């Protein structure tokens, strides 16, 4: 059997070509992988490009707040106050009954801002469901004004309270989470003059391999 004899210099150049080809391939793959990433960019918080995850997201609060305000304004409840003065609203407790920690102002502040901009409601910051003033300085100013004039500050016409509930279900590799936002507006008589709830259900599928 004849074994081909390859000269050393040719063998060396072949190996060099193979090694440089492999290196070029690795560089190309690395370049492609690094090109898959992207720099941070701004997206509109109320727009359609926000990330959707199984957990509660900023858009869930925004969608709930918007639908609740829509429902409240359309109900006409706030029009029943006599005179042109806007109604005074105090924010009571909104309970977080989910397994996640978040600031409840993500919901209540958006509702307050929207109602304030509607021109139908003013919110007091000296009275809250926790028993402590949201703005202690404003409460002191109000107390001093009351002492000076002898006139009592107007009491709130309405109290806003609510709850956020999380329920989960699993079937095979599918996971479903429902977030229920419940809100009630109670008047001075202690009657809930408006109530509504919004539900957002999210489903995801666990991959067959991994988590």
């Amino acid at each position, binding site marked *: 059997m004849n074994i081909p004899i390859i000269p050393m210099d040719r063998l060396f150049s072949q190996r060099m070509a193979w090694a440089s080809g492999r290196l070029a391939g690795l560089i190309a793959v690395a370049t492609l992988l690094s090109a898959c990433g992207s720099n941070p960019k701004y997206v*509109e918080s*109320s*727009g*359609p490009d*926000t990330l*959707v995850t199984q957990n509660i997201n900023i*858009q869930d609060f*925004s*969608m709930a*707040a*918007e639908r609740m*305000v*829509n*429902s409240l*304004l*359309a*109900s*006409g409840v*706030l*029009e029943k106050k006599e005179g042109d003065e806007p109604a005074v609203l105090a924010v009571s407790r909104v309970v977080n009954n989910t397994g996640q920690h978040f600031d409840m102002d993500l919901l209540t502040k958006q509702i307050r801002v*929207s109602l304030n*901009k*509607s*021109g*139908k409601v003013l919110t007091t910051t000296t009275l809250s469901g926790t028993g402590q003033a949201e703005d202690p300085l404003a409460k002191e100013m109000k107390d001093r004004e009351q002492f000076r004039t002898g006139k009592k500050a107007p009491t709130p016409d309405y109290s806003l309270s609510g709850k956020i509930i999380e329920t989960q279900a699993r079937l095979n590799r599918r996971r479903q989470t429902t977030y229920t936002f419940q809100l009630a507006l109670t008047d001075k008589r202690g009657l809930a003059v408006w109530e509504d709830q919004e539900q957002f259900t999210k489903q995801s599928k666990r991959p067959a391999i991994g988590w």
Partner: protein
Amino acid sequence: MNKHSSFLIVGIAVVSASILGTSCRTANTVQRKEPVAQHEPIDSKRVNTDSSLADAVSVVGLRKATAPGGFLRVQLDVVNRTSRAKRFTYQFTWFDEKGIRIKQGQAMHARIHGGQFRSLTSTAPTPKAKDFRVTLLER
């Protein structure tokens, strides 16, 4: 045709049928023949740049009402003219009488089945809002 080929063809047919069966679930609807609701339709101007979305979320009606306190309420009636479900977002933007933007609403996520009708409603954020624009986007 050998045995392996016939198994392969049957397998492909079963998989294709199951895929088609799950993705082409369409909605049947029933409603009053002569609706009693008094419509206040709005003449609309439409700019369609996504023809597939325009088929899947086809606007068939645009009506308005006024809520107590003078808040404008708008309803967009859409129908999915295809046999496939579609995910989309809709977003209302509100303008005052001078055409200045007052508020851009939250983009709402929605899903519509093949053949399904849906009504998308929104209430103006203030009585000063006199005009609106709705943007539909494929998700």
